[in-house]
């Protein structure tokens, strides 16, 4: 099911397909006409996606068919093996962790995972991790330090799960610990926001040396729906809240929260997952290489400064 604003694109695509089909059946040459339409399609996609509102961007970030964490983990890397369990509370399917290879170098991969269908969504708790998920991530940070494996995290969660067991098991504590543990990594760490970067539950695995974001992904302190519910007591004001929250890739780059944006194929990652995966792979390699030249001390210091300096405030006159 296309998103509202994708309807014209889908319609045009359908027309081009029909025309191709017709040309084939009738054995006539409609090459020129098709080519014209294809150009129009490209322009339409470009215009549409360049001018998305922030709320539309939120919808793209959550679109079904958009590559999920596991799509990246399994396809960007070679030899991925999943490692399970936090050795204390359980094995949280909302966060997938493991080892993988990037050319000759082994890495630790940590990824939040929403479902690719309803069944998986339920299994993955819609990508909302419990404390066990963050504990598993921390176990991977330990493994990464011990074997000097760079860490790559993929962020895609509405947020950490707000439930009774999660609170009883110290959701706040474990997010804080994960932030701290990740900031202490002695190896290079890269984070990529691939879909929805939801609040502390996202940041818990986002304290990297370099933080990238996909063009249509978002990163926010609160979901537009919850924000609207608080500000206007009306969750349907989410589009307004999305606008106010400045949660798109470009906004975040302006605020220095992300270091760079990874362009998506025209029409969004969900229209061309394969190209998206390739772009992400290339970007990971390019970003990781210089980080691998840094010493432990430099990596720690760079990460410290990167996060220490975030925020906007003004000196008071007279101070």
């Amino acid at each position, binding site marked *: 099911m296309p998103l509202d604003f994708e309807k014209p694109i889908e319609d045009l695509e359908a027309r081009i397909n029909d025309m191709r089909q017709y040309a084939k059946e009738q054995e006539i040459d409609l090459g020129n006409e098709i080519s014209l339409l294809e150009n129009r399609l490209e322009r339409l996609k470009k215009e549409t996606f360049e001018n998305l509102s922030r709320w539309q961007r939120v919808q793209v970030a959550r679109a079904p068919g958009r590559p999920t964490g596991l799509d990246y983990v399994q396809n960007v890397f070679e030899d991925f093996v999943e490692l399970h369990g936090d050795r204390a509370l359980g094995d949280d399917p909302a966060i997938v962790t493991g080892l993988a290879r990037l050319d000759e170098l082994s890495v630790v991969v940590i990824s939040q995972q929403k479902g690719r269908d309803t069944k998986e969504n339920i299994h993955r708790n819609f990508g909302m991790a419990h404390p066990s998920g963050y504990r598993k991530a921390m176990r991977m940070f330990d493994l990464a330090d011990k074997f000097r494996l760079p860490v790559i995290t993929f962020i895609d969660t509405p947020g950490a*799960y707000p439930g009774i067991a999660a609170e009883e098991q110290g959701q*706040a504590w474990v997010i804080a610990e994960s932030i701290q543990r990740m900031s202490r990594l002695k190896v290079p760490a890269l984070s990529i926001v691939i879909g929805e970067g939801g609040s502390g539950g996202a940041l818990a695995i986002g304290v990297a040396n370099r933080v990238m974001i996909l063009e249509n992904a978002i990163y926010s302190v609160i979901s537009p729906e919850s924000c609207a519910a608080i500000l*206007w*007591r009306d969750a349907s004001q989410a589009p307004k809240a999305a606008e106010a929250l400045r949660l798109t890739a470009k906004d975040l780059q302006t605020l220095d*929260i992300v270091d760079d944006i990874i362009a998506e194929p025209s029409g969004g990652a969900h229209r061309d997952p394969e190209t998206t995966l390739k772009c992400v792979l290339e970007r990971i390699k390019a970003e990781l290489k210089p980080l691998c030249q840094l010493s432990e001390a430099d990596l720690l210091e760079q990460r410290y400064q990167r996060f220490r300096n975030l925020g906007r405030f003004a000196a008071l006159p007279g101070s």
Partner: protein
Amino acid sequence: MTLERWFRRNRPTRKEDDNSPAGLWMKCDSCSAQIYRKDLVANDYLCPECGHHYRMPVEARAHLLTDPESFEPWSGEITPQDPLEFVDTESYVERIARAQKKQKRPDAILTGAGLLDGEPVALAIMDFFFAGGSMGSVVGEEIARAAERAAEEERSFIAVAASGGARMQEGALSLMQMAKTTVALESLSRKRLPFISVLTDPTTGGVTASFATLGDIIVAEPNSLIGFAGPRVIQQTIKQDLPEGFQRAEFLLKKGMLDEVVPRSQLKASLAGYIHLLRNGLKETAHAPGL
């Protein structure tokens, strides 16, 4: 979702009114006794009848936790910007101006230095009466500066948390204060300086999920509401009633999340005890002091 309390229920709050000079008498929330407001203030905002812990203004807290005349404020030199040009029912700029006027400080925090039972300490005390104690860039920066300066001056660090969570109007910048305050604590760790976290009612959201739960020792005041998500959010998510005492300090102590629940009347003595003990380990030269 973290600021709900501030926006919904506690906006021009009854609690605040309790501490206003409006009425001379008030009825205790807990025991229903009639309390003379001045007695409440003189009693460190504890009900003289039942000991119920009321929220405490930050200056009073600073004096409660430091030796007489020793407290010297550090914070107050920076003020919020409006990086998102945020407007809801009111603009962020107006909201802040109103809060600043009411609380007479630039943002929801007071930091400073003092002596605690003779021990040099730095304090970071969150002001719940300022925008629900929400953490934006200024709160994050003040905490980070206080932690770093404490490390420089070889002071133990005490944070007193009270917060509805992140400062929504600063968007993801407020989220990043979680990482910022957390990394700043490293400066203390490197010098083996104690960081004691005191959680007070209420502490939820991003503050709980960052520096406030990273104390070498974590204590809470009795009956404080402490959690990641607010109770309303959880209730909406799970569509069932929350267990009795859920997210309260005593509950969290049983769940292993706190070192102790400490009544306000014993708080200074407890903190002094922890700090004395944590600062008198073996010297780096591996010599036992006077054993």
